[in-house]
Every structure is written in structure tokens, then in C-alpha cells.
């Protein structure tokens, strides 16, 4: 009896050891993608974009005069900010409700297909589930769309908001220094280009300019990029993520590790 029990236990353990790794290692099938460009080309979006473009054109002619008339840099900045604000308000008014409906449709379709993440089509090289048709069909239907009952399941694909990371003071400082250096180099190499007629000589000047810029970029930005990559890699590993992508490429779901990366970089 004892021997049978041991055999049973051994057999069970063996069966579990065969099943469990394959269950853990099941391939990811919950990755969907959306062709956002196709969604944006829907007549309803096109109409709203057209109205926005028309508004922008009117607004621009109105603010151009004010900008030209502005005497100080502070006045110019005030005019530019007022223009940006007016544009944002109009965009929210025209595109906001459409965007909200599209987001709701994406969440519904993703939920019905048990997707943990939906990314933009641009970054999908192969595979994944294309949900573009389903989303378009739901967006263009006349029925009201309600939010799905459950939130997106946890995903082994994480994302980082690169724009949030770029607001760090040291990144801003490096970017400012690089922009200043670029402006200076443009003057220096621009002067060298003046009057040069031969293509070979011209190409050499451009190559030198590119090299100067690349060297400066490496000097200023590469250490920051490496630091960010390393922090992202460490956080992703600790959270058992397989890949991390940019937030700009995520349409729905995914695991947001931006705050963790920011905290790690701030230490």
C-alpha cells in the first residue's frame, strides 16, 4: 500500500513537473494590435480633423498679427501660449468625445478577446491579433459603448512613458546643452560651407559636422540613455516582464513601470 502510495506520489510529481513548466512557458497569445492610422482615417475623425485645421488656419492669421506686433520676448511668449491654449481647447472639444468613444471600443474588443495589451500596428513585425476591424465596426455603430466590466489583465509586456522620463532636470539640461552646441556648430560649419562648390569638399564638411554632433550626443546623452536602459531592465526583470516598450506605442493595457523607473533614476 505504502509502495503504491509512493508510486502514486512519484507519478503525480512527475506529471506536475511535466505540466507546470509547460503551463508557465505557454507562449504569449494575449497581444493585440490596432492600426491607429486606419482608425484616424474614418470619415468621422477626418471631419473633426478638417474642422480643427480650419480653426487653426483662422486662429493662426489672428495670432500671427499679434505675434508680429509683440515687442518683447515675454509678449511673444504670451501670444504663443494663448494660441496653444486655444488650439488645445478646440481639440478637446472636437476630437475629445471621438477619442473617448474609440478608447471605449478598444477596451471592449480587447476584453472580449482576453487581450492583456494592445499596441500600435507600427511596432508589430509579426504575429499578434489584429483588432482594427472589430474596433472600427464598434466605433462606427450607432450603439452606445459602455466600459468593460473588468480592467485589462496583468501583462508580461511593460511600458515606460519616455516623455515623463525626459522631463527630468538632468535630461533637460543635457538636451539644452546639445541644442546650444548644435546652434553653434551650425554657424561654424555653415561658414565653412559658404562658397564651397565642389561636392566632395561639401560632403566632407557635412561629415565633419555630423561627427561633431554625434560625438557631443554621445558625450551628453549616451550616459543618461544607458542609465535609463539599465534601470528599466532591472525593474522589468524584478516584475517578471518579458519586454518593455514606449507608452506612445501602447493603445490599451500593459504594465506601467514608469514610476518605478523614475524612482530608480532619482536615487
Amino acid at each position, binding site marked *: 500500500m505504502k509502495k503504491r502510495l509512493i508510486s502514486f506520489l512519484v507519478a503525480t510529481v512527475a506529471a506536475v513537473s511535466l505540466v507546470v513548466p509547460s503551463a508557465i*512557458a505557454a507562449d*504569449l497569445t494575449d497581444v493585440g494590435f490596432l492600426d491607429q492610422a486606419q482608425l484616424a482615417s474614418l470619415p468621422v475623425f477626418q471631419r473633426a480633423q478638417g474642422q480643427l485645421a480650419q480653426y487653426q488656419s483662422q486662429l493662426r492669421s489672428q495670432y500671427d*498679427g499679434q505675434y508680429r506686433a509683440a515687442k518683447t520676448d515675454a509678449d511673444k511668449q504670451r501670444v504663443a501660449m494663448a494660441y496653444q491654449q486655444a488650439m488645445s481647447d478646440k481639440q478637446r472639444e472636437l476630437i475629445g468625445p471621438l477619442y473617448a468613444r474609440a478608447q471605449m471600443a478598444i477596451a471592449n474588443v480587447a476584453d472580449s478577446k482576453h487581450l492583456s495589451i494592445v499596441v500600435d500596428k507600427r511596432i508589430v513585425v*509579426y504575429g499578434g491579433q489584429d483588432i482594427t476591424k472589430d474596433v472600427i465596426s464598434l466605433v462606427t455603430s450607432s450603439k452606445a459603448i459602455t466600459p468593460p466590466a473588468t480592467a485589462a489583465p496583468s501583462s*508580461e509586456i511593460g511600458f515606460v512613458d519616455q516623455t515623463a522620463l525626459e522631463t527630468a532636470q538632468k535630461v533637460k539640461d543635457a538636451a539644452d546643452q546639445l541644442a546650444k552646441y548644435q546652434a553653434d556648430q551650425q554657424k561654424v*560649419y555653415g561658414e565653412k560651407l559658404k562658397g564651397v562648390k565642389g561636392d566632395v569638399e561639401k560632403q566632407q564638411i557635412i561629415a565633419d559636422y555630423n561627427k561633431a554632433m554625434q560625438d557631443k550626443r554621445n558625450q551628453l546623452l549616451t550616459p543618461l540613455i544607458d542609465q535609463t536602459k539599465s534601470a528599466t531592465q532591472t525593474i522589468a526583470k524584478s516584475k517578471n516582464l*518579458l519586454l*518593455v516598450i514606449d507608452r506612445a506605442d501602447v493603445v490599451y493595457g500593459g504594465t506601467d513601470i514608469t514610476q518605478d523607473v523614475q524612482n530608480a533614476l532619482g536615487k
Partner: protein
Amino acid sequence: MALACAAALGGCARVDVHAPNVRGIAYVRMDEVMKHHPLHAQLAQLQDSIAAINLEATLPHEPLSAAQIAAQTKDLKAQFKTAEDRAGKAIAALQQTYAQKEHDADVAAAKAAGVDPAAIGIGAAMSAQSQAQAESAAQAAAQGYVTYQQSVVAQDAEAMKAISAQLSKQADQKLRARVEQYQQDESDLSLRLAQQDAPERIALKTKLNNLALDPAARKSVQSQISAIDKKESAQVSALHAQHEKALDAYRAQVAKETNAEIAKQTAAIRDESAAKINARRVAVGAQLRSLGGPPVPTQSIPPQLAKSLGQIHQQLIAQYQTDAQKIASDFSATQDDLNRQFEALHGADVGATGAAAKELKDLQQRHDALQQQMIAQIQSEAKRIASEMGFSVVLDSVDAAPGGYDLTNDLIHDVESLHE
């Protein structure tokens, strides 16, 4: 090629696609693969050419004279007018063509339905169609007139400001040159007098050094030196006073000339703009007056034929809008470039303009097309390899990858083999 594939597949065979840290997911560092594409050198060359134009656009320009600014402003306005006329004529011709097309299609549809086109007012339909198009065109022209007027006035204000600033700068330069000349003359006179009186001054100072000189004689020598100093100073002061007077007169003359020149040039700009605005007003007025009421049909249109005519109308309207949009886009691109040239003329940093902007656009298009071609080819190869290796998803643009499989090197082997 075969060897490369074998090498790549050899590599693939060692990958456990379903391992817990891979789970059927892979990624590609597309930028890295692009560098190994056979067409990468061509792409880099196009990028360099684009960079060269952008760099040249940042060059500081030689300051233009007021006359040059005025001439170039006039030239840009002429170019704008030509582009505008060309677009207007193209739109008018397009309206005519489509009105004729619709008329012909309507006549054919009516005849096919056994109905006399004239009796159901097909000719009138054409007129009505032309009427609608003309109304729409006139409405657009009326709206455009106001915008045009505003843009001409704004451009004039900028041009007048630039001309006024340039002429004032030239006047300042003239005055400064005259002041410097006078100062030089006064220094020269002072030096000349000092040299002229030097022997006498030295002789008198030598006498002063004689300790045996009695006080009365010493006083006399000192007063002689003082007299020489006064004489020199009086001559220099006289010249200075003369110069001050001449300078006042010259300042008044330059100011008068500058104001006259500013007035002349701004009047020319105003006259030219007023003529242009007036011409536009006349054209818009004529367009509005040319509208007439459509003729009335004498027989009702059978429902089936009405449906066919509606379809023809919708189809042609859609085609017309596509063609008209193209003309409008071309005009808009020209207008944008001319506006940028205008801003550049008045000192704004707007990047490449004119022929350089056209070349830049052409290079950018070729660059984008080549890049797309390379990406499509790489993606196609990536799909094939991913499918052969059994991956479920392959992504590009990955920020970090503690798991998954990096397909980049396999793809580089494959892409490099495209040379062979």
C-alpha cells in the same frame, strides 16, 4: 545566400522559442538592421544631402539694402499673384470640364431612358450645376477677398517697417561717417599746429629751463607759450564750431532725404497694394454679378432617370473635389513657400526657401520612399524567419528586454545576404 540561411537557421535551431523566458515572443532592433541593408549607403547619402541644405539655410545672409528688399518684395508679390491666377484658371477650367462631363453623361442617360433631354431641362441642369459651382466659387472668392486684403496689408506693414529700418540705418551710417571725418580733420589740424609751432615752443621752453632767467623775463616767456596754446586751441575750436554747424545742416539734409525716400517707397508699396486689392474687388464683384437664375424644366423627370442623374452627379462631384483639392494643395504649398521667403526677406529664420526648399522636399520624398522600401523588405524577411522559427509575436522599438528573443542578428545575417 544559401550559406547565410543555413547559418541563420543553424542559429535558430539553438533557440528554444517556447522557453519560459522567451514564451514565443521576439523583438528586432530595426535601426541596427537598417545599417546592414544593402541600400543603407544610398539612404545615408540622401540624409547627408538633406543635412547640407538645412545647414546652408542657417547661414547668416548678407544684409540687403532697402531697394533690394523692396524689389524682392515686389517679385514675391508678383509670384504670388501668378500662382493665384494659375490656380484660379485651373479651378475655372476644371469646373467647365466637369459641367460638360455631367451634361454629356446626363444627355446620354436621358436618351438611354427614351426621354428628350431638352424637355426635362438637362441643359438647364448643366446651367444649374454651373450655377451652383459658380455660386460656390464666388462665395469662396468673397471670403478669400477679405483674407487676401488682410494678408496684403500685413505684408505691406512688414515691408514698410523693413524699408524704414534699413533707410534709417543707412542715414545713421552716413552721419557717423561724417562725424568721424570731422573728428579726423580736427585731430589733423591740432597735430599740424603743434608741429608748426614746435620750434618756437621748444625755444621758449629751453629759455624757461634757464635758472638765471629773471622773473619778468620768465613771465614773458610763459605768456608767449600760453599765447601759442591759446592760438592753437582757438583755431581747433573754430574748426569744431564750423563742423558742428555743418553737421547740423547735414543731419537735417539726411533726415529730409531719408524721410522722402521712406515716403516714396511706402507710397509705391501702398499704391501697388491698393491696385491689387482693387483688382481683386473688381474680379470678385464681376464673379458675383455674373450669376443668373437657372432655367425651369418643362417636363418632370422619371424616377429611375432621376436616380441615374443623381448617381452621375454624386460620382462627378466626388471626382471634381479630388481634382480641385489637388489644385488647392499645390497652390497652398506655393503660398506657404512664398510666405516663408517673405518672412526670410524680413529677417526671420525660416530654414530653406525657394529652389532650396523644392530640392529639400524632393530629397525628403526620395529618402522616405527608400526608407519605406528598406523597412518593407526587412519586415518581410523578419516575418519569414519568425514564422520558420515558430514565434507568435515579434515587436520593433523595444526599450528593454529581460526576456524574449533578440531576432536582430538573425535578421542582419539574412539582410546582408541580399548582397550576394
